[in-house]
């Protein structure tokens, strides 16, 4: 299990190739967890309601702690 911080999830949301490769090759079937404050930071970084909806969709898929 790994906890991911804001910069990592932002890189993943941006589709940054090294982050995507890290997900596929290093993480694979390992579980990821998202801290609640990271979700709040991501929401703070949203430009519009559509982006907020996307972040909430992401958050629903994770175990938030």
């Amino acid at each position: 299990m790994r906890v991911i911080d804001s910069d990592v999830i932002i890189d993943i949301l941006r589709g940054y190739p090294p982050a995507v490769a890290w997900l596929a090759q290093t993480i694979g079937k390992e579980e990821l967890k998202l801290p609640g404050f990271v979700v709040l930071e991501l929401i703070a970084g949203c430009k519009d309601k559509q982006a907020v909806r996307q972040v909430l969709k992401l958050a629903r898929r994770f175990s938030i702690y």
Partner: protein
Amino acid sequence: MSAQTYTAIIQRQNGHYAAECPEAGTNSVGATVEIALANLKAVTERDLSGVHLLAVDAPLVTTFAIGGIAADYDQITTQSETLAVEEQMLPIPMTGEALLSSGLVGIWADRTDIGDTLEFARELRQRAQTREHE
């Protein structure tokens, strides 16, 4: 409290397993049958904490087909209604592979306002920490 046995109805849905306990009205999901069952046990224990359900007969769980032959309404039980799965109560564990196939990777690819990711993340954290109540 003495141990009580409850029914678990588990169905495969959209690549995961949805579990429901008809006696307690609880439900859960899991990537495997075992995980769905463990989640259902946890949710039911949580919801029934301090609550003692009246003893009920074990329900008859069966299946039926719709279409082709007219249904004999006298034979229909309400059991089928318990198969409906509501909103999931426990999330499915998110893995690297699941995130890759979630359709969420790259949704911010067009964010030209984000330069250096680390700097942007730092700015968001600082903004969250210094935010004043409105």
